[in-house]
């Protein structure tokens, strides 16, 4: 049977959105994210919650290899969001990545154009650990003085990818890191340096 979506679609979606909004507005902070979802594996409840809150017929989803292999995942997302699931990463508004360590390079995704930098993808990565006490040093809009963030597992060259992404500002992708029950974000405006 199809796993159910939000118990209270209006208010659950609002709370997930506010958590993501606060995470993006204050990079390096970790926001609580309660989902109440039990989606088919390897889709995590947090990836599912972001998709259910923000994707729809106007915002296509791209799934990484692990998620794309599972017909149950595609069925769950299609039923609850109505979003088109695309094979072409460049078409995606949101990319769901269950295996964050194997996250494809950012240039596969829409970066926006100089006149419309907002026409760019948001990558949602499932991570197992998040910490704001160690790891990278962050600075930029939304950060008072400086902030730190550590997430794992991620590709070893993630800081270099994030640096390239930031160098392309205002174009680029935005990153949401979703751990069990918690979410953090790295918008393209954030400068990331290895700790």
């Amino acid at each position: 049977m199809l796993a159910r979506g939000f118990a209270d679609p209006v208010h659950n979606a609002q709370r997930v959105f506010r958590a993501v909004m606060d995470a993006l507005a204050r990079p390096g902070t970790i926001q609580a994210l309660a989902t109440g979802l039990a989606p088919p594996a390897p889709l995590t409840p947090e990836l599912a919650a972001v998709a259910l809150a923000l994707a729809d017929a106007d915002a296509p989803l791209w799934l990484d290899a692990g998620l794309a292999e599972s017909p149950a995942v595609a069925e769950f997302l299609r039923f609850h969001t109505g979003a088109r699931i695309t094979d072409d990463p460049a078409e995606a508004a949101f990319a769901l990545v269950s295996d964050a360590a194997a996250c494809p390079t950012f240039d596969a995704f829409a970066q926006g154009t100089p006149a419309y930098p907002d026409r760019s993808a948001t990558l949602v990565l499932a991570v197992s650990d998040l910490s704001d006490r160690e790891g990278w040093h962050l600075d930029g809009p939304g950060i008072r003085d400086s902030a730190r963030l550590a997430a794992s597992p991620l590709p070893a060259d993630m800081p270099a990818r994030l640096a390239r992404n930031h160098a392309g500002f205002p174009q680029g992708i935005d990153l949401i890191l979703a751990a069990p029950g918690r979410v953090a974000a790295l918008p393209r405006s954030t400068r990331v340096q290895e700790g």
Partner: protein
Amino acid sequence: MNAETGYNFAYLDEGTKRMIRRAILKAIAIPGYQVPFASREMPMPYGWGTGGVQVTAAILGRSDVLKVIDQGSDDTTNAVSIRAFFARTADVAVTTRTREATVIQTRHRIPEAPLHEAQVLVYQVPIPEPLRFLEPRETETRQLHALAEYGLMHVKLYEDIARHGHIATTYAYPVEVAGRYVMDPSPTPKFDNPKMDDCPALQLFGAGREKRIYAVPPHTRVRSLDFEDHPFRVQTFDRPCALCGADGVYLDEVLLDDAGGRMFVCSDTDHCEERRADGHVGMEAAHA
């Protein structure tokens, strides 16, 4: 669904909220950049805050406490009706106290009381494009923003100096956000521009008729454009508030009679009321 009104929570349908929410997220990621969005018809005319109302509706949750001000005042028609609109369609708590609010929708003022981390300030914006009166074509202004080519704006400010001897722009005074985009802070008096810089609250801007959303994340550098020899300066007032005696606040002129009588009072009504409740008294308080 709200049983009393028959509308969805906070009036907008969920599809519209998702569209606005996606625009807000991109606006936060690109500070000062104007994100186009599919602005809806709202049950109020353009010019009465349809952009701000849509942004507020998209972010509002059941536990939020909403404050709405119009030119600093909680009790003018626009503020009262928007507050009542959300009290009715979203059943959220409303307040006039700046400190107690989690979401503050504003038309043309920033509260005098310092904002804090747990607040979102939503601006109603009539014309989001700071270059619009210098270059009417949207295709061209997009290009100017893409190239960060803001020479036109400096020419406009320079012409002010050439004509008046100082920068005569007093409201909607252009700012540069995070060192990149030049942004219209909405028609707030330039007195409020310094409050936008390094503000602990998230600032969101909604322009309904012009279909644009933009944002300034918390603790972001917001610099008012100026010249080395003509640095940015805010308005100053030569007297304190007539009711609460506050200095260093933005004042409104109130006519008292038809014989030239007038007084100057806080534009921020909540700030003035809280000061008077604390025992501060201005020169005219006895007559008010």
